[in-house]
């Protein structure tokens, strides 16, 4: 009897710890966990000053009452960032078919401000067709503020052996209140994005 009770207690305690650690057996990676966390409780964006590819300074608050899709990039990236750039270009073009009140803005933030100057971003924006209004390429020149922004959103940047970086490739959906409300895969369909935007 004593053994049965002990085994039962360990089974319940062990399962409970694993349940809590994995958000109810849903999140085995920290990437999945951060996505579930913002969906459950949208996360307000910190106040940071961004500089777009035309050299204009702005903040997240300037998007007042508009949904923004944000991705994090660096222009030297040979792999994920061009793919995400192409995805954003698709989304940018598809907005022509959306009624103005349902449109959203696109924002690509570089996490490599030292290399990605305004001039470099401007050339990168030309490559992908970012127009500077509904799609901006931007940088955060204050490294401490950039680090804070990345930490708040759970974006982890690690240097690779080729002098570049590996990072979370995802689309951060910012709601009309300036909070990250969803984090989606970069290859999610335009229809799914439209659905998410309409809910916000």
């Amino acid at each position: 009897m004593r053994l049965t009770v002990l085994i039962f207690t360990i089974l319940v305690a062990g399962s409970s710890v694993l349940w809590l650690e994995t958000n109810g057996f849903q999140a085995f990676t920290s990437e999945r966990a951060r996505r579930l966390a913002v969906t459950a409780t949208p996360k307000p964006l910190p106040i940071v000053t961004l500089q777009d590819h035309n050299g204009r300074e702005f903040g997240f608050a300037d998007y007042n009452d508009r949904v923004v899709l944000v991705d994090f990039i660096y222009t030297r990236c040979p792999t994920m960032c061009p793919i995400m750039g192409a995805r954003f270009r698709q989304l940018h073009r598809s907005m022509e078919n959306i009624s103005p009140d349902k449109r959203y803005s696109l924002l690509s933030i570089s996490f490599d401000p030292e290399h990605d100057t305004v001039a470099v971003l401007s050339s990168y924006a030309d490559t992908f067709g970012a127009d500077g209004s509904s799609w901006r390429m931007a940088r955060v020149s204050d490294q401490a503020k950039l680090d804070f922004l990345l930490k708040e959103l759970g974006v982890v940047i690690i240097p690779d052996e080729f002098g570049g970086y590996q990072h979370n490739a995802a689309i951060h959906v910012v709601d009309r209140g300036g909070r990250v409300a969803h984090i989606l895969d970069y290859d999610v369909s335009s229809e799914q994005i439209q659905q998410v935007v309409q809910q916000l």
Partner: protein
Amino acid sequence: MRPTSYTVSFLVVLKNTLKRIQSTTLACLLFLVLLLTSKQLEMTMVGHVLIQLPLLVVCGWLVTPSLPSRLESAIEKDNEYGIPGILIVIFTVLFWMLPRSLDAALASPFMEFTKFVTLPTLIGIPLALSWPLLTPVAKGFVIGNLLSMLAVLGWLYTQAPIRLCNYYLINQQQQVGNLLLAITAGIALYFTLKCFFFDKNLEVGAL
């Protein structure tokens, strides 16, 4: 008891005590080294997953013979057939197998502390205390499960197109995956050879 018997008993006790002191000293030294080299080992996924974590378990295993005999017999009384102990081991292993737990240990000092405490105390010590108590069937079950868990994890790390741990590069993840598969194959081969070729009279309990 004759004087020679006293001498023999004394020598046996002395030998066992020295062995215990040796094993505890080794465990403490190993723990200290792991503590001091934590940043270096955690820089690579191989260092973190395949060196630091197993060695922390070894620390717990080595320190077990030095536990006070009262505590050991109290644990043994509740640890019938080694089942409660091995269950604690399995749950703790499952927890630290999660990529999320590895990331958390790197991101949060509290989780790093938890790792250094739980691996020796909730895997190393209970494993050392429970393994001799397990029935042959239970030992076979544990080894079989360990091999399948390692193989699945290794396969997952080699095949996943994305980083499962945010703090490690994808090629490091694949490296760990390949090594896990190699370790699994090595353990499986060892037991296969031992059971079927080298020791035909071997009982599972002797594993």
